[in-house]
Structures are given as structure tokens and as C-alpha cells.
């Protein structure tokens, strides 16, 4: 597209960050998509491995031990579990390797399943090159990456009213977390969210990570029911 230079906002280099390259493995069953993605990722990222099936992915990840795995939700092979299966099988590397889910699927059950398996974020495959690079860096720094759509799923699953103090902490979002999720769903970047709410980017990241943890750990009745309903599509 011709009119999109405004969209491109490379992450400003955070002072104190060592100019190292993030080691990444790309897992996707389409070779064309893998090579396209590799070309899109900028110079801060070093692609050290690729895989096209569940088995290959598990082997490659165990061998090169990357910092970030870009993982397609739908993958052939294995027991049919796709990206979720890769994450579970690589649980030994939980501390050092983070997973960022990539999908063309809009279906909530795919997204939520892979997040609950342990992925640190979810982005759609239509994401632009600089955005995906930012997302990879963010995940490598231990933060969570939410697309507007994932934020929408979260709001849908947890409800849009803030938590009472008496509620189980895991089952509802706090008022601040709701605000952050709403802004992300509205298409705001973390920086814009921070500006809108007069908080630091670091605080935004803390809130997003908290939401991710709730999404992963909550046994909230509505959440499971919601996921089950969506599976009935």
C-alpha cells in the first residue's frame, strides 16, 4: 500500500538495552510464509531455525534453544495439537524460551487454547514487518503481546465490568486492566495506551502481563464455558 508510512513505528531503542540480536525460530507449515516473514523481520532479529511440522519444531527448538519461537497455531504432524502441542513438549525450556503465536485464524478457541498452553502473545499473520519485529523484541523481554482481537476475546471472556475486591483475583480484571485491554482493542499501541492513561509503558506492560497470567491460569467458570461454546461453531 502506498499510504501507510504512518503505520510504521519502529520501537525506540530503550536506553541501557544491549544491542544484541534476538535469536528466533520460525515454525509454520508454509515455506512461502516462512521466507516472507524472515525477510520482514528487521536487523534486531536473527532467525536461527525453521520448522514446518510439530516434530520438526520440537526437535529444532530443543537443539538451538532460541529466545523466541514464532509459532503458527495450526501445524501438521504430532498428535494433531498444532502449536499447543509444541509448547507443551518444550516445557523444559519454559524459563528461557518464549512463544509468540501467529495465526490466520480468527477463531477464539484456537487463540485462547494456545495462550493457555503458555504462549506469551498472539498476533495475526496480516501484521506488518516492523510490528512483528517489535512484538518479537517485546516477548524476548518477557512481556506479553496482545493484538486488538485478542484483547477483544479477553474482554468477551472476562466481562467488561471491573472486579470487586471480594472476587477471586484470577477471575476478573481490575478496572485498570480493563482500561488497558479496551484501549488495545481500540487499536492503540502500548505507547499510546501509556500516554492516554498517563502511566509509563512499563506499567502498561505489567498490566498486560497480569491479564495474560489471568487468561492462562483462571479456572473461571465463564471462561471455560465461553471457550467450550466457541468450540461448538
Amino acid at each position, binding site marked *: 500500500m502506498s499510504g501507510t508510512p504512518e503505520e510504521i513505528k519502529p520501537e525506540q531503542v530503550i536506553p541501557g538495552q544491549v544491542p544484541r540480536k534476538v535469536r528466533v525460530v520460525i515454525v509454520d507449515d508454509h515455506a512461502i510464509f516462512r521466507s516472507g516473514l524472515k525477510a520482514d523481520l528487521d536487523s534486531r532479529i536473527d532467525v536461527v531455525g525453521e520448522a514446518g511440522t510439530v516434530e520438526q519444531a520440537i526437535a529444532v527448538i530443543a537443539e538451538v534453544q532460541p529466545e523466541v519461537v514464532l509459532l503458527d497455531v495450526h501445524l501438521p504432524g504430532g498428535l494433531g495439537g498444532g502449536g499447543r502441542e509444541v509448547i507443551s513438549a518444550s516445557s523444559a525450556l519454559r524459563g528461557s524460551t518464549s512463544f509468540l503465536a501467529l495465526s490466520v485464524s480468527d477463531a477464539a478457541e484456537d487463540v485462547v487454547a494456545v495462550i493457555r498452553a503458555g504462549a506469551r502473545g498472539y498476533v495475526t499473520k496480516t501484521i506488518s514487518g516492523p510490528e512483528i519485529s517489535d512484538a518479537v523484541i517485546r516477548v524476548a523481554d518477557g512481556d506479553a503481546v496482545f493484538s486488538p482481537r485478542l484483547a477483544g476475546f479477553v*474482554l468477551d471472556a472476562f466481562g467488561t465490568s471491573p472486579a470487586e475486591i471480594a472476587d477471586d483475583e484470577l477471575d476478573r480484571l481490575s478496572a485498570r486492566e480493563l482500561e488497558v485491554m479496551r484501549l488495545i482493542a*481500540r487499536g492503540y499501541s502500548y505507547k499510546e495506551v501509556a500516554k492516554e492513561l498517563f502511566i509509563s509503558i512499563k506499567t502498561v506492560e505489567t498490566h498486560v502481563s497480569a491479564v495474560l497470567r489471568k487468561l492462562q491460569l483462571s479456572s473461571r467458570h465463564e471462561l471455560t464455558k465461553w471457550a467450550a461454546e466457541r468450540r461448538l461453531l
Partner: protein
Amino acid sequence: MTTAMQRPPLVRSSDRMIAGVCRGLADHLGWPVKYIRLGMVLASFAGGAGLAFYAWLWVMVPTADESARRNSRRPASPIAPSVSMPPSVSMPPAVTAPDGGAQPLPLSAPAPVFASWFRLRRIQYGKEILLGAGLLLVAAILIVRQFGVEVPLGTLIPAAAILGGASIAWMQLDETRRAGLVDKTKADQAGGWVRLAAGLALVVAGVLVMVSGSGSWEQTWLALLASIAVLGGVALVLLPWGLKFWKDLETERAARVRETERAEIAAHLHDSVLQTLALIQRRAGSEQDVVRLARAQERELRTWLYRDAAKDAGLLAERIAAAAAEVEDAHGHAVDVVSVGDAAMTDRHEALVLAAREAMHNAARHGGGAVSVYLESSDTGSEVFVRDRGPGFDPDAVPEDRLGVKESIIGRMKRHGGTAVINSNSEGTEVRLKLPVENADKAENRNGEAKA
């Protein structure tokens, strides 16, 4: 002929004295209900015939509700649409219509119309006519016996039993075939088994009585045991074959369903994806066209794949998504919609959709990039946020004669009790539309008054 066809169906009326029988009969025959009631009472004195007739009608004639329910249930088979049935097997719904008056047959072909009319009539009233004839025959025999004429009842009764049993069993087969082995609701199946068993029992009893020459009970009993033993043996031998045939039939049906599904998917892919790919190849030079085509196709395919079947059509989220699709097609920029919750459409929501569409048009036109749309509906109201990444503009500096923003967005929202806020800076523009629930406002006002 035509009067008979336009006659209202015989159902028990809700406007009733005892069970609505007389009223229903009066409606059906077109006679005054007084005469029917009088006739019924008079007939009751003739050896209780009126009472018996009344009781029989009470049991046999459905109420208006029951009749309507049954007729609405009949043509709608839950899996019928997914299984392609040959047209000869499926009955046209007109046959089951209660009045039989609505026949969608062309009048230009008199001969077939006449033939099919006959067929319909026979199916509709055949059973009743047969039953009536049988009862008349029985009555005639009884009367003739009264006058001392010897009637060979010993042969007639078993023969009648065999005939009746066989016809019940065959009727069952006919109905299963008619339903195309599709309408397998539990109730129907149970009824079928009962009918089969009754038919079988009648036939066996009839044959036995006939063969044993209406002999003593003991003989009959022995013969019955023997025949049951034989039947059991035959069943034991034939059971494996029967099961195998049944399994084959099931497999074949499943395969047919799969094949139908596959054909449907293939047809859809051919109509949509392949056509789009062909178009993209031909327009490969124009980047904007390619993006537009790809987005439109993606959207269409997504809707088809992930569509929530349980979700009602025509709700707010769907309307917003449709508006976004329209804008996307018109301007060639991606419009991403995220929606949380949903609301039913009203006139006010219609205004919200129109205002949101206008905002999306502006965002795509002036923003020149991807547009984010977020819809949130809850108990308190609906909010829509439309955001672009354009250079931004000063909402106060918009000339008075430009109606787009002022009239179509802000004015429209105000008129319907909502608000519109435009927030623009150098990093983009966001239009925030808010439509509170009408009743909530009123309730709040009332609460306020109560407190005051």
C-alpha cells in the same frame, strides 16, 4: 368437490361445552352447533350410540393446538437439508397441509393435475375410508346374523385378522419409505415398532386360527409356541445378514452426507477463492486492486468458515462488521473490527451504525491506512470507536458547510440520545460514539426522583 376441499379440518374446538367435539364437528360440516348437540343427545338415547360416538371423537380427534403442532412438525426434518433426497421419496409439504387446499400445481396441465389430485385425496383419506368400509361390513354381518342367516365367522375372522395385520405392517413399510429413512425421531420409531408387532401378532393369530380350524385353546396354544420357536430360529439365522445390511446402509448414508458436504465446499471454493485468485493474477500490476481483492476474499471466507451459527443475524455487531466491509471495499484500506458483546438492533442502533459507517468512511478516506473499529455493548449501552493513523485534523476548524462530520456523526448521535467525540492529533484520529440504553436513563432518573 371444491367445498369439500375448503372445509375446515376436523379439530376439537377450544370454544367448548364438554370437550369441544360438537363445536368442532359443526365447524367442519358447516352446520349450526345447536342441531349437532341436539342430535348427539337424541342419539344417546338410542342405546347410547351418541355417547359412544362422542367418546370416540373425543379420543380420536386432535385439539386445534395438537393438530397445528403436528402439521408444523411433519415437513421439517432436522437433517433433511443436509441429505439430498430424491424428489420421489420426499413428500411435498402440500400433502400434509391440513386443508389440502393449497396445491402448488400448475393449472395449465389438466390431466396430471387431476391424477395427482386423486393421489393426494387417496393418501389423505384412504385409511379412514377403508376403516369405515370395514366397520360397515362388520355391522352388516351382525345384522344379517340377527335375521338368522348363517355367516361363516370361523373363516371370516381369521381372514380379516390376516388382512388387517398385513396391511398394518405394509403401511409401516410405506411410511418408512416415505420419510426416506431420515425422520428417525424416537417417537416415530417406537410407534413403528408397535405397529409392526401388532401387525405380526394379528397375522400369526389369524393364520393359527385358520390352520387349526378354530379348534380348542390348547391346540392353538401349542401351535403358537411351535410357530414362535420356528420364527425365533429363522430370526437367529437371518440376524447377521440383517445387521450387515443395516450397517452397509448406515455407511452408505454417512458417505453420501460426506460427499454432499465435500461437494458444497468445492462449489464454494470454486465460486469464491478460485475466482478471486484468477482476478488477482490478471490484476497483478495494481497493488491496490490486489489488496482490495484479497481483503474482500479473506473476509468472505472467514465469514463462511467461522460463522457462529447460533448467533442471530441482524444484530449490532454484524451490522457494524457489514459497514466495515463496505468501507473496506470502497477505499481499499483494511478495516479491522473487534467486537465485545452484542445488542439487538433498534432505530437508535441504526443511527449508531450509520454514524459509525460515516466515521469509517472518513477514516479510510483521510487516514489513508488501516482503520481499527472497536464495538462494546453491555447492559448500559453501546460504544463504537473508530480509529485511523492519518495526519489528523482540527474538528473545530471543519467548515460549516461540510456536513459529513457535523451532521452525519455528531448531529445524528445527539438526535438519538447519544454522544460523539472526535479526538484528533498528529498521530491519528479517533471517533468515539456512545449510545446509552434508553431504559437505563429513565430508570436512573426515576431512582433520582425517588431519592429526592
